[in-house]
């Protein structure tokens, strides 16, 4: 088990390094940030001055070295757009809202998707199965911005139950959570259902019934534990994606998370901020994958003992 963990950890570190490197060169393909920073009538000289100030005049590899050096000391650089503010500062303001939204959405979607998937499988082909499948198809197919706008229109504008945007108090998180959670739950529910179908018809479930085990225990102890393996992996990876990928939902609800920071940074070619945000999101992604592997090994004794 310890060797397994160390191997996975090493893998995670390498993945992050590759991500950082690819990212560094990729953002620089998107164009020159200075164009966006200054009005067009400014002289060439002033533009060069700016480039020098931000170290953008140096050869790419030197820039890369400086960037890595900064990373080691925890310095992600300074924003090109929000002048004078460090990337670290900008990110730290956004982490909490992002985490809050993604954790709530994830919990909400698991709470809905797991039982729904399990019972859809149990009652395959019957009423509750169809209801669950329609719920999941809608959640997956309806664009988040549409769901978000409809929610806003009904619950915020007409009924005035919730604020129309921003992040103030617990109420403001309800609609974004629902919008994002529904979208996420679609995939989790489908995977739970198909995974449960497989294990529900397995021999070990048959044997549990033969032993005289109660049906609810058959489902949750015997079938679900094995069916949960792929679901856990998927949910962990999705969670990481949700942290960084809630861009549309954050935009619709004016939620001050990483997603809205990232989208603005991309538009402004704010390299340091893009890098910082993606490194953060990417590292979260890699860490979640690592945790998923651990959880998988913990639940599935076969992996634990054969590696």
């Amino acid at each position, binding site marked *: 088990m310890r060797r397994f963990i160390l191997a996975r950890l090493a893998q995670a570190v390498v993945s992050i390094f590759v991500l950082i490197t690819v990212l560094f060169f990729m953002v620089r393909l998107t164009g020159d940030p200075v164009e966006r920073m200054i009005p067009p009538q400014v002289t060439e000289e002033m533009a060069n001055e700016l480039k020098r100030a931000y170290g953008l005049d140096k050869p790419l590899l030197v820039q890369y070295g400086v960037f890595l050096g900064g990373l080691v000391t925890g310095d992600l650089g300074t924003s090109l757009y929000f002048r004078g503010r460090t990337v670290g500062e900008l990110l730290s303001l956004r982490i909490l809202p992002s985490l809050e939204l993604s954790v709530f959405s994830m919990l909400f979607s698991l709470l809905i998707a797991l039982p729904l998937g399990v019972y859809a499988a149990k009652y395959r082909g019957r009423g509750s199965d169809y209801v669950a499948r329609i719920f999941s198809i809608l959640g997956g197919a309806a664009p988040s911005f549409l769901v978000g706008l409809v929610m806003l229109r009904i619950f915020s504008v007409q009924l005035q139950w919730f604020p129309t945007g921003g992040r103030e108090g617990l109420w403001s998180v309800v609609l974004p959570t629902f919008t994002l959670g529904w979208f996420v739950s679609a995939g989790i529910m489908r995977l739970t259902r198909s995974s449960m179908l497989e294990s529900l018809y397995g*021999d070990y479930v048959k044997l549990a019934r*033969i032993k005289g*085990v109660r049906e609810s225990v058959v489902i949750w102890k015997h079938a679900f534990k094995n069916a949960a393996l792929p679901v856990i992996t998927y949910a962990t990876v999705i969670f990481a994606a949700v942290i960084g990928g809630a861009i549309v939902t954050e935009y619709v609800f004016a939620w001050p998370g990483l997603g809205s920071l990232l989208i603005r940074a991309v538009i402004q070619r704010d390299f340091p901020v893009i890098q910082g945000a993606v490194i953060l999101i990417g590292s979260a992604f890699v860490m979640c994958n690592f945790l998923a592997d651990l959880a998988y090994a913990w639940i599935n004794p076969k992996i634990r003992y054969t590696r």
Partner: protein
Amino acid sequence: MLLEVKDLRVQFHTRRGVVKAVDGVSFSLDRGETLGLVGESGSGKSVSCMALMRLVEAPAGRIVGGSVLLDGQELLDLSEREMRQIRGGQISLILQDPLSSLNPGYTVGNQVAEAIRIHQGLRGRALRDSVVEILSQVGIPQAERRLKQYPHQMSGGMRQRVAGAIALSCRPSLLIADEPTTSLDATVQAQYLRLLSELQQEFQFGMIFVTHDLGIVARLCDRVAVMYAGRIVETGSTRQIFNEPAHPYAKALLATLPSLESRKKRLLTVSGQPPLAIDLPPGCSFAPRCPEVMDICTEEFPAEATTGDRHRVLCWLHSPSDEMSLSAR
């Protein structure tokens, strides 16, 4: 009589039609007795076995009629809750594949303990001792150490012993073994069969042993039931069936038996295809393959012929009115 099954019927409602998987099965079994259930695959052996425990896959499958008396108690009338007490308590079943029938996510100890906990209410130390005891009884060495192992850490033979331990942990009066040795190699299989016999000697459970292997039937079983297309077409003592098979299908099966010296597996193979259980022909289901088919066979379903000594056959060659016809042949 330990078990009396009368006219048991199980149907599956599928898209292609109603499958009469078990279509009027009757047999009986005494304590300490072993009944061999033989027949081609698809003839309804497994479904019959599961139906005895009222475990037919709903909603497609349903027990539509008949009677299952265990120690005189009608199982088909019990509530689901009462039935759970019977399952694993009074009737147990060993499935064919010991790898897939043990849960990969729980230790062997946990899985054996579960049945004992449900049916005998043991907890803690007593439960653990009871698990170790039954594991030792089925011949698992160092049972104490095996408790924490997972199924995949054991060999196929050991896993099937664990399945046996689960089945016998609550001292059932009826053990159903659905081709329990098919996936084991020859030596392990022989050991396992010996173990089952010994345990039966000790606990005196009645056993239904489903198999393709007539060699096993000859060695292990007191009585034989030959299944064809959802019905038991002939049943009698092993001697009767092997020495004087009455049904043409049983005769064909036995003709496939090589001499006893042969080490080859004696598997059931009879030329022709078994009928689809969806549209069974009127009359005798074996008629399309029967070398002795007569006119009446395709028109009317054969009535049961019985001799006095529990030897019964479903075939027009043996008229029910002529009690002596069986022994005469």
